[in-house]
Each structure stands twice: as structure tokens, then as C-alpha cells.
């Protein structure tokens, strides 16, 4: 049985996705435990350069294809590679693209699936995945059953692994065997409408300043943008703010939006209702600013400040700039 740890590496015009670097580091660490190597399945524009993932921890790279198409288009190619390699695990980012491609592999090859998980380890030769369920009230650890086909497909939340720093080396790059894309290739992008301003990818942000109903208006988000800039982060929002049209939908964090795991999450005027909480509760440090001393977010924040965000946030921005000397 294979001992390698494979992972999906997504490429776009902007280069390797942060998830690719995170999973590379994670796969390398797991492969050291399992006695195999980390193998990247790279796809998307620019994936031909994926040899650079060698510095991130990968030993081998298989390029599935470089068309700017939804990831699932490469399922047939990925399936052929995975069926031959039979790694111990295949990790995919818990993003729409990652989920779809992972799902196709689960269907095509009949694989055990886990996720989205917040931790992965090797226990007694088995892939063990840890997941928060029931809205975070229970942590379950799961493994494939005995005799289950390999690999275990694991959807991994952002920031579960930290990209390796200062690595070097180039991974060997081979193209996947040429083949028909199959049915998935029949779904094509017929129109592409860029937004006026690119919206930050919250799943990759290490600092998120999020606004909720308490922000009150689109203009109210201005101080949050300033704070995010001072902290080197991105702006997010609760569903209430997105539904009200104060921010684009892509910034919505929560049950029907993005699931994020930043190092710092700052919630301004956000009550912390469960639908939002499930999107951010695994953030490492949670700071909440709210006028309402009884807001539910006060129960799970690390630091809860009762006060008016419009007074505190600008002062905080200024103080941070002062301390950073910027």
C-alpha cells in the first residue's frame, strides 16, 4: 500500500494558491511520518511552474492541466494518477474548487472522505482527521475503516498547516497522462465578468476585520478598512452586512459564506450568532468590539471590548500605526 501523501495544488494567474503552499508543508510533514513522499497534483494556469513547490515540501509534481477551467475538469486526469499512485492520503483545500475535484475522485474511485478538518495526523499507519462538528461543540477524530481503498480524501481548512519558510529545492515535474477530460469537460466557462475591484480572498487572509449589523452602512466600513490595512489584513462581514448590500457577497463569513481561520479575527458590531460563528470560530485570536455587553460573541471571544466601534476602531488604527512606526 502506498505511503505517499498527495495534495491538490491550485494555480492561477497569480501563481500558486496559498492553500497549495500550506498543503505542501502539511503533506511533507505527514509523509515523514508515513515513510513516503509528498506529491503535488497541480492544475490551472501556470501550473507548469509547479516544480517550485519543491521548496514548499513537495518531492514530485504531476501537472494535470493548465487550462483556466474549474478544477473538476481535471478529475479524469487526477483519477488516473491517483489510481496508479494510490497514496495514503490526498489532501484538498476546503474551497469550492478543492471540494469539487475531491468529490469527483471520491465518486470515481470509491474513496473514504473526511472533512473539512482542522488537523491531520498519522496514527499507527492510518490517516486520522480531526473535525469540529455540531457547530463546534464536539471534536471528532475519524479514520478510514480497515480495508478501505486508498487514498483517504481529506478536505483541509485554511491555516491548518503553515507554509514552510526558507525551503529550497525543486520537485520533479511530470505531466499527467494525456486523456479525455470526460463529462466534466462539458461544463465550460462561457462568460467571465470581473468585478470593478478584486475582492480579497478571505480564506487566505491571516488577519480579518469583520463588520456586522452594528456597522450600519457601507460607509461605516471605512474605519474597518483602515484597521485592516494597518494590520495587513482583509475585511470580512457577517451575513447581515452582506444582505444589506454594505459589502459584496464574497466577503460574507459564516454558514452560507466563507469559513476562515485567520491568526487574528476582529469582529466589529457583530453579535456572534451561530450562523456567523461557524465561519470563524477556529480563528486563533478573536477580538470583538460591540456596544452590547450581552452579545453572544462575548462568550467565545478571547478579548471582548464593550464600546462604540466608531470611536474605538479609528483610535486603535492610530495606536497600531504608532507602535509599528508606520
Amino acid at each position, binding site marked *: 500500500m502506498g505511503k505517499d501523501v498527495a495534495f491538490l495544488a491550485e494555480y492561477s494567474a497569480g501563481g500558486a494558491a496559498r492553500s497549495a503552499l500550506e498543503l505542501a508543508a502539511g503533506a511533507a510533514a505527514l509523509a515523514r511520518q508515513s515513510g513516503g513522499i509528498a506529491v503535488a497534483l497541480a492544475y490551472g494556469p501556470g501550473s507548469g511552474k509547479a516544480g517550485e513547490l519543491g521548496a514548499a515540501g513537495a518531492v514530485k509534481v504531476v501537472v494535470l492541466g493548465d487550462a483556466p477551467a474549474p478544477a473538476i475538469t481535471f478529475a479524469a486526469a487526477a483519477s488516473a494518477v491517483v489510481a496508479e499512485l494510490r497514496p495514503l492520503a490526498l489532501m484538498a483545500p476546503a474551497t469550492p474548487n478543492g471540494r469539487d475535484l475531491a468529490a469527483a475522485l471520491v465518486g470515481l474511485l470509491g474513496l473514504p*472522505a473526511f472533512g473539512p478538518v482542522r488537523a491531520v495526523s498519522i496514527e499507527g499507519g492510518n490517516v486520522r482527521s480531526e473535525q469540529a462538528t455540531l457547530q463546534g461543540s*464536539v471534536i471528532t477524530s475519524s479514520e478510514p475503516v480497515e480495508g478501505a481503498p486508498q487514498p483517504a480524501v481529506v478536505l483541509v481548512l485554511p491555516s491548518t498547516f503553515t507554509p514552510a519558510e526558507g525551503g529550497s529545492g525543486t520537485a520533479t515535474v511530470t505531466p499527467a497522462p494525456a486523456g479525455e477530460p470526460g463529462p466534466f469537460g462539458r461544463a465550460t466557462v*462561457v462568460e467571465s465578468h470581473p468585478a470593478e475591484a478584486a475582492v480579497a480572498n478571505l480564506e487566505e487572509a491571516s488577519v480579518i476585520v469583520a463588520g456586522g449589523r452594528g456597522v450600519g452602512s457601507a460607509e461605516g466600513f471605512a474605519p474597518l478598512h483602515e484597521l485592516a490595512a494597518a494590520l495587513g489584513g482583509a475585511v470580512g462581514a457577517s451575513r447581515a452586512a452582506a444582505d444589506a448590500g454594505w459589502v459584496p457577497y464574497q466577503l460574507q463569513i459564516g454558514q452560507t459564506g466563507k469559513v476562515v481561520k485567520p491568526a487574528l479575527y476582529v469582529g466589529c458590531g457583530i453579535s456572534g450568532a451561530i450562523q456567523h460563528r461557524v465561519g470563524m470560530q477556529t480563528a486563533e485570536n478573536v477580538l470583538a468590539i460591540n456596544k452590547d455587553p450581552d452579545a453572544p460573541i462575548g462568550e467565545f471571544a478571547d478579548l471582548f471590548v464593550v464600546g462604540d466601534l466608531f470611536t474605538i476602531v479609528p483610535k486603535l488604527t492610530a495606536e497600531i500605526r504608532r507602535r509599528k512606526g508606520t
Partner: protein
Amino acid sequence: MRIVVCIKQVPATTAEKRYTADLRLDRASAEAVINPLDEYAIEQALRLQESGAVETVGFLSMGPEQAAEALRRALAMGGDDATLVTDRALAGADEWATARVLAAALDRLAPDIALMGMASDDARGSLVPGAVAALRGLPLLSYGAELSVAGAHARIRRLTAAGFDVIEAPLPVVATVTDQVGEPRYASLKGIMAAKRKPMETWSLADLGLAAADLHGAALTRVVEARKPEAKPPTERVENASPDEAVGRIADWLAARKLI
């Protein structure tokens, strides 16, 4: 033109009663009969039927016998018929087993579009739609903010970080939609009464030509441990402080955690 919407019944857990920040009783989504994210798929299908783009809408669910309640509720919202796949061998089915069974049922129902919601509740992986598409050998149109039908094609509008794309595929397809499609309707009283008269079929694994052995015993995964999350240290609170004091304490806190 026919759409079959796959829905999942969320178990009716007793939610802890609490009140919300605006001092209303909090209705936890866990009380819903139909997985809330599936309601958007139902709404999208019914809108397409009302606009005349689609002739019939059916519902499909895999679950215990009780899942028939969710199907009745869907029929009360609209649509024409429902199918329940239930079998003792399916208890504890994981995502692959679920996909296998739904794919077999959908192959028998043969809709032009098999439509699902974004993800099932409690943050599960939402792998079922892609796996179903793979098993059926059909294209997948996923994460649609809107689904439409044009001739022999289906298309979705998908929001991206950089705007939106329109993705198209020839029918038949598997598709999923997000909460952007619009507010799901409530079942009306006439709808509830009409739902009782709409046909509902029940299928077992045998009816699908499957045996328990085909599903590797319903689950390829098992839970080895369940525990409470690490107790977090109690929340530090800053109250009744002047804004300058509060800001000072926040900045100190950020510095102590090496965030600035």
C-alpha cells in the same frame, strides 16, 4: 424538462433555548425539517417551474423513514412528486455511500437536472454532488448563485473572488446552488393540504439493484474519538473603560500575542 431536487432531512435535535442579541428567541437551524441549504435548491427549482422553463419538479431523499416528513414539507412548498430511498443497511452511510445510492436513484429517475444545495449542515464536506456527478458520468455545475435553462443547456452564474463567471453544460447535468438564489418560500396551507395527495414512492436498496455489499457496509470511515473542545480560557472583558484606555489594552493584547 424535469428537475429532481435532492434534499436531506436534518435530525430534529433539541436546541438549547436562548435569546438573540435583539432579544428574540433564537430558532436554531437544527430544528428545521429540511436542511436549510437545500431549501434554496427547492426554491430555485420551483421558480424555474413557475417561469415555465421546467415542467415537473420532483424531490429525492435518502434517509430513515422519517425523512418522508422532509419530502412532504418540500411537496408542500410545491413540486409534483417525491421519492424516498430508505433501507436499514444505509444507517450511518458516509458521503461515498450516499453518493452511490443517490446516483443509482437519479439514474432511474433520469431528470434533466439533478439539483442540490450547497452543503449539508454541521459543516460537512459537500462532496456528495461532485461524487454523484462522477458516478453518473455527468457534468457538474456547482455553487450557482442562479440556475437557468437555455434550450438543451443549463447554466449557472457563479460568484468568484474576482466577480462572476457563467458556466454552461449540455443537459443532463448535476447542479448545486447557494443561498444567493433568493429567500425560500414558506409552505402555504393549501400547499400542505395538496402535498398529501402528491405521489411519494419508497425505494429500498434492492429496488435500486444494489446490495449492502456494494456499499462496503455503508461507511468507509469511522469515528475513533469524540471529545469536547479544549476549554478556552475565559473571555477577557474590557468594560466601562474610556476609549483611550480600551485602545491601550487592545494594543497591549495584540502585542502580547505577537500580532503587531
